[in-house]
């Protein structure tokens, strides 16, 4: 029951991921980072099958970083999304598909706009103003429909994110040990 949420503001993307790492009935750790920085201005948040998640995220990270080293340039978030989607699509009809759901949050330095993309384990992709995966989506998307507007400030975005986390704390039956918030803007990725 991992939580990953994302929302765009005027100049940034805010991504929140739950910090509990659970196996069976035990909580392994309460500070688990469910994200990987794949490029200076792009973050991949993941959830899904244990093992597949980190394996796939680090595979993406390695390939994107290699591209950056070879070509001395950063891939844009939409380009990274295309790569992620095509790898998931290739995996879908293989012997054992990756069961990983992903949110890609980035800042496109060419268009100077924040970018958020929802990609699921079937390799469906949708660029959206706000997104969530899993059970969290059922509780938070309606809040985001109600309060999110285009071009809100970072502070307003953080308030909406707090509202979403509060709702999850109220309604989810398990303790997800809070969320780690990452912000991606023109200066890169930072933890808040």
């Amino acid at each position, binding site marked *: 029951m991992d939580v990953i949420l994302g929302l765009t503001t005027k100049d940034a993307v805010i991504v929140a991921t739950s910090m509990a790492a659970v196996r069976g009935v035990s909580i392994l750790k309460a500070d688990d980072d469910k994200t990987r920085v794949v490029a200076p201005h792009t973050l991949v948040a993941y959830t899904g099958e244990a093992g597949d998640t980190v394996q796939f995220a680090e595979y993406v990270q390695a390939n994107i970083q290699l591209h950056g080293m070879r070509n001395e340039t950063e891939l844009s978030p939409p380009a990274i999304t295309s790569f992620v989607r095509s790898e998931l*699509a290739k995996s879908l*009809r293989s012997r054992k598909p990756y069961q990983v759901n992903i949110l890609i949050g980035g800042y496109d330095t060419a268009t100077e706009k924040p970018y958020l993309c929802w990609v699921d384990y*079937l*390799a*469906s992709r*949708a660029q*959206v103003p706000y997104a969530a995966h899993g059970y969290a989506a059922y509780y938070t*998307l309606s809040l985001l429909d109600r309060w999110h507007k285009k071009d809100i400030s970072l502070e307003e975005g953080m308030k909406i994110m707090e509202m979403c986390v509060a709702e999850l704390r109220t309604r989810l039956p398990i303790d997800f040990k809070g969320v780690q918030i990452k912000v991606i803007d023109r200066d890169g990725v930072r933890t808040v």
Partner: protein
Amino acid sequence: MSDPSSINGGSVVAMVGKDCVAIGCDMRLGMQALTVSNDFPKIFQFNNAFLGLTGLATDVITLSEVFRYKVNLYNLREERKIEPETFANLVSSTLYEKRFGPYFVGPIVAGINSKSGDPYICGFDLIGCINFAKDFVVGGTSSDQLFGMCESLWEPNLEPDDLFETISQALLNAQDRDALSGWGAIVYVITKDKVVKRLLKTRQD
């Protein structure tokens, strides 16, 4: 896992008019009951052929990219634009290649032949069987509703503006009776010299 063609939802419809064709789609992308996006168009343009793709969203995206690739190479080799009839056969062969591991889609093609000016529409099943029609073709989770709407509203030789009204009403009323389709609609009206793309104002539920 449920039926792949009704996980994400979506509808498309195409109709023939007097020297024109129209093709329309809804804008919903869902995960069963949950709506993920209201900005997921299902119609793609390849030269003067329009392809409407419903079904499993991942295959819709994959196929739109596969056909973009194939049509680009066609343009480079043939040094001309692809015609709707030719594109339809390309769709058919591409789908049949995956006969025993198919793409879960319900494509429809619409366009006007640039040489003869004849309107052309057809539909396919997931393995590429061409369903050529002289009136209308439908596809998606509200195909039954679309069949009913089209059969009653369509008449031959509609002018472009009348064809637009007809196809729009068929799409709107059909998608309003389907839980998995809706959240917006786009209609393209194609004539020999221009293409008009209109976003319809629909129920957002």
